[in-house]
């Protein structure tokens, strides 16, 4: 964007362009490690699904499609609102930035609440592999639900961290330093979108697998 606010420089940088390049590069290096981290989980998923497709599909059929789809809509919407906020900050449109940040916080929090409600539903149906009343004996179904709990909890932790970063943007806005620290917003946005992309992949793997 051509008319970015004057950036707050941190050591050792003397030019905003170099600081920006370092920030984006560093963030992408971190995201690369995250891609490999989540990749290991997805490899486990692929092996489990290939080794017992019918058991895996039977397990997947019990996943709550409605709540999973609602959460997908919430997260896709939050990516859009945070993008609006990020670009508004760079264009020094403070009101739109604030609305975008608050909307993102609300949508992210709603995602976690829906997820919590979904966990409650799952547990009331004994859909945790170590529960005595777990309704499946097939290896594929057990692996599906092991994957479900592991990956959704890992994702929820990532989202919670993202929410803390987004809340920090609101605090920076409150103290009036958000404009000059637009690079912080960009870093937060990149991380948030990554968490969104992981969920975009999880949605068909978890909620459409048994349909």
């Amino acid at each position, binding site marked *: 964007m051509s008319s970015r606010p004057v950036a707050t420089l941190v050591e050792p940088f003397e030019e905003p362009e170099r600081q920006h390049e370092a920030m984006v590069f560093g963030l992408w290096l971190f995201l690369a*490690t995250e891609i490999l981290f989540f990749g290991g989980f997805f490899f486990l998923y692929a092996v489990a699904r290939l080794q017992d497709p019918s058991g895996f599909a039977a397990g997947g059929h019990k996943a709550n499609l409605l709540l999973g789809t609602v959460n997908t*809509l919430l997260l896709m919407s939050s990516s859009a609102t945070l993008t609006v906020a990020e670009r508004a900050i760079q264009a020094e*449109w403070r009101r739109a930035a604030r609305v975008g940040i608050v909307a993102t916080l609300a949508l992210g929090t709603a995602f976690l609440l829906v997820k919590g409600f979904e966990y409650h539903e799952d547990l009331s149906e004994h859909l945790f592999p170590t529960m005595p009343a777990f309704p499946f004996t097939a290896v594929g179904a057990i692996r599906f639900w092991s994957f479900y709990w592991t990956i959704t909890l890992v994702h929820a932790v990532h989202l919670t961290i993202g929410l803390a970063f987004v809340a920090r943007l609101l605090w920076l806005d409150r103290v009036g330093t958000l404009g000059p620290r637009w690079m912080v917003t960009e870093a937060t946005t990149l991380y948030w979108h990554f968490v969104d992309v992981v969920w975009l992949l999880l949605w068909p793997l978890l909620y459409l697998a048994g349909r």
Partner: protein
Amino acid sequence: MTPERRAIVVKPLLVWAALIGLGAISLGYALVPAVPFKPLLSLSVVVIQASLVLGAFMQLGKASALVRMTALVSVVWLSFLFLMSFADLATR
């Protein structure tokens, strides 16, 4: 509202609408009974959705060559992980 400000709101909304439309295609196809290639279609849709987020929201296309290389290399290493692990599994 200035054209610049309108673009700040409208462009992300268009991408958002495309993401939802693609998701609806995945969901609709998954709910049709006894049709082939469901995982293939849903994963293809995810690739398009991820490309939209990476390109339009994360602006990877506008990033420097160094950044684009970093993103690409992560996928290359991930493909090695999958390739070698599957090779090990298939030859046991």
